[in-house]
């Protein structure tokens, strides 16, 4: 209570935060609204701020049959693709980062620091700067329009490796010594001691990487050519035909809602892990 409890001091934070929350929520609310109206109402800009009556029809149509104008792929398939991509990327990143960080922190071998730097430098090579050569490699390997091609190049992650490295450094050395005295080798130590200790870190990382994977845009845009390999984030963009009055906005907005719902739910429901993951990956 450093400040006196004035009425103004009490009200201002609430007002500012409420305005903030409204601004943040408004675009999504509008999308939600649009997804409950019929095409004509939306097309003519006659939506009100209250929901319409077409919600079930719109969502049913989009999930099971898809939009008319461009892609005919049902959004259900896209959701499945997005989900698989996010899951594979998140789990894959955790798995390979976990073991490589384990090697770097707990072993001494020639070129250990070189190995560390080799991974570290990839931080400076985001997919956007090496995009066509990477595309060509994936194409040459025959991985276009496959889940492998979609996910494998995104699985290597310096951030995840650095995060595990940082966490492993906080594991007391006495624990390794105690395990050695108890007769545990490196594999046992990893399985029985390190893995159980890393659960929270892995969970936090999973939350962040799932969102990262779900929201990928540029890479799937290049790698997927067949409609049935499309992710929902790509699918929604293809439903918008900027110059064309044919855009079915009510369906596009229903798709937008479906596209943002899973990652947003992950953030809201696993807020603690999300915050932990976000703050720690940036250290």
């Amino acid at each position, binding site marked *: 209570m*450093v400040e006196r409890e004035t009425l103004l001091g009490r009200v201002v*934070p*609430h007002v*500012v*935060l409420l305005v*903030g929350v409204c601004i*943040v929520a408004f*675009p*999504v609310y509008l*999308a939600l609204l*649009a997804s409950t109206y019929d095409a004509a109402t*939306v*097309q*003519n*800009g006659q939506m009100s701020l209250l929901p319409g009556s077409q919600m079930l029809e719109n969502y049913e149509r989009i999930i099971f049959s898809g939009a008319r104008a461009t892609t005919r792929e049902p959004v259900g398939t896209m959701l499945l693709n997005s989900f698989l991509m996010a899951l594979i990327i998140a789990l894959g990143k955790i798995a390979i980062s976990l073991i*490589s960080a*384990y*090697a770097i922190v*707990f*072993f001494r071998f020639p070129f250990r620091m070189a*190995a560390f730097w*080799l*991974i570290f430098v990839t*931080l*400076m090579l*985001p997919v*956007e*700067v*090496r*995009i*066509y*050569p*990477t595309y060509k*490699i*994936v194409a040459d390997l025959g991985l276009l329009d496959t889940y492998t091609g979609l996910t*494998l190049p995104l699985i290597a992650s310096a951030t995840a490796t650095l995060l595990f490295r940082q966490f492993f450094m906080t594991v007391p050395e*006495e624990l*390794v*010594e105690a395990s050695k005295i108890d007769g545990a080798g490196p594999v046992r130590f990893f399985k029985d001691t390190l893995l159980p200790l890393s659960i929270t870190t892995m969970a936090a990382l999973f939350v962040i990487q799932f969102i990262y994977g779900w*929201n990928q*845009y*540029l890479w799937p845009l290049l790698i997927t050519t067949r409609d049935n390999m499309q992710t929902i*984030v790509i699918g*929604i*963009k293809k439903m*918008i035909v*900027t*110059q064309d*009055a044919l855009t079915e*906005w009510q369906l596009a907005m229903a798709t*937008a809602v479906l596209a*943002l719902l899973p*990652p*947003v739910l*992950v*953030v*809201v429901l696993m*807020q603690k892990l999300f915050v932990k993951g*976000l703050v720690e990956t*940036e250290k």
Partner: protein
Amino acid sequence: MERRALFGGKVLPYSLLLPQFAIVVVFFYVPAVQAVWQSMLMQDAFGISTEFVWFENYTILAANPEYYRTMGTTAVFSVLVAFLSLSSGLLLAVMADKQIKGATIYKTMLIWPYAVAPAVAGVLWLFMFQPSLGMLAKALRSWGIDWNPLLNGNHAMILVVLAATWKQISYNFLFFLAGLAAIPKSVIEAAAIDGARPMRRFWTIVFPLLSPTAFFLLTVNIVYVFFDTFGIIDSVTSGGPAGNTTTMVYKVYADGKLGSDLGGSAAQSVVLMAIVIALTAVQFKFVERRVQY
């Protein structure tokens, strides 16, 4: 980072590193080197023969006024998004840091846009400001503003800036909130006893103590604007109208996509790489400074 208690052996650690290495080499280092190599090659108009031209692609790039325009667009875009999202994130964090009822609910209600894909965020904003049917576009028209982001470059820029800012506020909010929580309460109390009124306290104590967080966020925001906003730009404007919202990353994509100028596109990639490396270096300097407080 040296540790005493370590395991020996060579086969195990190398095989543990193998999966990561295989991916990193095949999908990171080889393409990066190829990008550099490609940037020194030039194809003829029919794509039949390829010639090694040293730095000609770069000199062409350096002489291209369009490329400078792209740089200018990127700069304007970055400055606006970074300024808007940092300042509103800070304002909201300062308010949420006060001990008020429902602070945790506000927090939840403010952080979720982080999870929205940039492309989806772009579509949401496009829908609101779509000139013929967007709810806010209609409001603007009724106030006499001839709003049309599909034709007017400034309007298009405003729209992508708003969408990009909207998505980034939650990130900045969260980090500023953590930064505020890390300031010992007793330091604020000491300042109150030392006679500093709330505003003065904010500018002389809180803000200086937040500056490491702010610097860190600035570099992160710039990286975000450079790379992660690709989805926003592609879904809202596709770089248009007339290239008014084409950022450097978007140009790499667009030039390469048409397939006509792979060398020029690669040269642009290399320029971008240099920028990322510089940003990372700057970030590390500030991260080190941050540890000292």
